[in-house]
């Protein structure tokens, strides 16, 4: 058993405990160092685990309790390439967030760092575990740290409301997951994912369907899939920048990761005969999410909220990727998560930079003010292109993999959804770039009626006249990495290998329960013609640029009669997003009920 396996959780949590004890004694420099060094260590260890997992997934039984006769007594970490990769990526983003917060970000003794380290440890445990209840525990640990970090700015009442909306919806989701786990435990008497998968076999009945619906819905709440998505925009609008980086960059994506993990280890057996129904449902959900998210994104003037809605749209695309239920699509999901996480994190970091320098994240108020920030402007522009999945970025690789996989099973229409989402979200960010960094378009007074000016408090001390390197470097590095991962050869193949391992249920069970040696077989070289994908991506990027410039120019038909129904739909959508927790939970209930009823009906009609 690998001795490294528990360390990605133990190191951040130990550092958190130590930092908390030294709360009143450490200077800021020491606190920063004691937070950043364990993060780097964790990332390196996860990287080493990834290398080990590429030959054979690493399995660690806690307490030394190995299974007896197929009954798992203890908790295991089952580290396959996908999980280890997710853990490495998490560490990278936490590092970026911590570097951004150096010096200037106002912290409460060492407690901000404690919360961030706890968040890191929880996310690593979440991605590496092989036990369903352990997954829930780390889910809750992740959530507890996230709630506190979200409400960090206690002087702003909107922060409290946003954090409350976030916390309440996510907690309901967590308890949905727990109810689902209870159902599975009642049927199989096990909590180990491999054992549950094996015991369930291929039998599908009401209990399995309900457990599936509850667990999926609970994780979809975390992933902010429609109609569970309302909390995300609120949380991003109020959370401090380094926290938003983590929320959009990895925390939301981990909801999708959990869905993938649980589906492929447990539910693919019973649902094997009904893949068509699952596919249909997930593609529908993903498409709606992508479209609604994109539309809402375009209408925002609060930069962080705009980016939050674009995350929702891209999560819709990830759901489509998952819903295709193919290894090549899953590989695309992995690449897209990495690419999107990096560019989205970079965008949030620049937004935080703007907040630091100009005390505002209102697109209109910032009109033209960032003209002198030349290099930052380039970074922001590049990240926006990454959002459009322009060729050269990891997002393009992921997107083309997903679209190709869709084409293979006759679902090529999803290309239109990818186009629409990329178009609107990238156009929105490019519009922000044009207005803020180039002074294009109009400033105050330009927008639709009913939009309030946004007031956001500083989260840093001392507005400076330059840009601190610590704030600028993480964004720049992340964009460069997004391009690097988009161009490195062999990455697509590695992703496909990881995806195949994740989908191999029998292999997973043999490795975990029988200690079998089932080595990882690398995927074959694939030679799909890239031409069509490149053309479409370039078209999306060009269209996004065009739309952005159009919206900034005086030809934008905001009041034209033809545009009226669109404007009304958008206004209707926006009024649903009321900020009221009762509405959110009502929609949540509707979503779970609809998901359950529709799935049950589809399965029975088959």
């Amino acid at each position, binding site marked *: 058993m690998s001795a490294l396996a528990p360390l990605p959780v133990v190191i951040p949590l130990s550092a958190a405990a130590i930092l908390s004890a030294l709360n009143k004694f450490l200077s800021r420099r020491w606190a920063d160092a004691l937070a950043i060094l364990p993060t780097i260590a964790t990332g390196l260890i996860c990287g080493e685990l990834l290398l080990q997992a590429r030959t054979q997934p690493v399995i660690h039984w806690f307490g030394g309790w190995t299974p007896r006769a197929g009954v798992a007594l203890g908790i295991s970490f089952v580290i396959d390439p996908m999980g280890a990769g997710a853990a490495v990526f998490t560490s990278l983003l936490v590092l970026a967030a911590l570097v951004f917060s150096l010096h200037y970000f106002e912290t409460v003794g060492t407690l901000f760092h404690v919360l961030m380290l706890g968040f890191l440890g929880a996310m690593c445990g979440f991605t590496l575990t092989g036990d369903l*209840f352990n997954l829930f*525990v780390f889910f*809750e640990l992740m*959530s*507890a740290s996230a*709630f*506190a970090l979200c*409400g960090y700015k*206690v*002087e*702003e*009442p*909107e922060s*409290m*409301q*946003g*954090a*409350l*909306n976030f*916390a*309440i919806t996510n*907690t*309901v989701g*967590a*308890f949905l997951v*727990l*109810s689902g786990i*209870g*159902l599975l*435990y*009642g049927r199989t008497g096990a*909590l180990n994912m491999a054992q549950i998968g094996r015991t369930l076999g291929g039998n599908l009945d009401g209990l399995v369907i309900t457990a599936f619906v509850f667990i999926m819905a609970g994780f979809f709440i975390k992933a902010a899939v429609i109609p569970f998505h309302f909390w995300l*925009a*609120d949380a991003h*609008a*109020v959370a401090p920048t380094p926290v938003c980086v983590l929320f959009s960059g990895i925390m939301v994506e981990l909801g999708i990761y959990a869905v993938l993990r649980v589906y492929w280890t447990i539910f693919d057996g019973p649902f094997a005969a009904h893949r068509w129904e699952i596919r249909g449902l997930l593609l529908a959900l993903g498409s709606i999410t992508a479209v609604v998210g994109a539309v809402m994104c375009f*209408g*925002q003037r609060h930069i962080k909220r705009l980016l939050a809605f674009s995350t929702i749209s891209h999560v819709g695309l990830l759901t489509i990727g998952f819903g295709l239920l193919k290894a090549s699509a899953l590989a695309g999901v992995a690449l897209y998560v990495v690419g999107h996480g990096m560019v989205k994190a970079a965008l949030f970091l620049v937004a935080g930079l703007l907040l630091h320098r100009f005390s505002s994240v209102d697109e209109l108020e910032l009109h033209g003010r960032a003209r002198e920030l030349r290099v930052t402007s380039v970074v922001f522009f590049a990240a926006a292109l990454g959002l459009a999945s322009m060729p050269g970025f990891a997002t393009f690789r992921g997107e083309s993999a997903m679209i190709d996989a869709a084409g293979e099973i006759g679902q090529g229409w999803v290309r239109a959804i990818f186009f629409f989402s990329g178009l609107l979200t990238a156009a929105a960010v490019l519009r922000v770039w044009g207005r803020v960094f180039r002074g294009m378009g109009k400033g105050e007074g330009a927008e639709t009626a*009913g*939009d309030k000016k946004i007031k956001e408090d500083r989260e840093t001390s001392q507005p400076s006249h330059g840009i601190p390197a610590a704030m600028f470097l993480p964004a720049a590095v992340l964009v460069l990495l997004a391009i690097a991962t988009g161009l490195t050869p062999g990455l697509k193949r590695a992703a496909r290998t990881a995806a195949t391992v994740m989908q191999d249920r029998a292999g997973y069970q043999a490795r975990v329960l029988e200690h079998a040696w089932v080595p990882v077989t690398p995927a074959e070289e694939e030679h799909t013609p890239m031409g069509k994908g490149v053309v479409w991506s370039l078209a999306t990027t060009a269209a996004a640029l065009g739309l952005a410039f159009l919206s900034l120019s005086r030809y934008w038909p905001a009041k034209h009669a033809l545009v009226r129904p669109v404007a009304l739909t958008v206004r209707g959508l*926006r*009024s649903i*997003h*009321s*900020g*009221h*927790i*009762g509405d959110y*939970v*009502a929609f949540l*209930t509707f979503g779970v009920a609809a998901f359950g009823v529709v799935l049950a009906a589809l399965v029975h009609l088959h």
Partner: protein
Amino acid sequence: MSFFPYVVAVWLFVIGLYGIVTSRNFVHLVICLAVLQSSTYVLLLSIGYRVGGTAPVFAGVRVGTPAVDPVVQALMLTDIVVEATVVALLLALALQLQKHTNTLDPDKLKALEG
């Protein structure tokens, strides 16, 4: 009678949800959330129950006597701690909200629309 505890679990979940959706006070809402959470306790404990089983504590009782499931009880302990801590965080948020806006009524908070 052997299905009734499950019905109780469903009812608790439902009534908790109802309370959250119709609440006019965030403290009341948090308590409704706690009620929702207790539905999972009932569910877990009902699953682990064995008729005629003793507690899984073998002090003075011979090992091997039929006992109820200890695993769900351990899970429930974890569950309770999770609930307590989430409630604490939520109440802290509610307290600060009250301090700044002088209200705890979700209907009156208009800051996050759109």
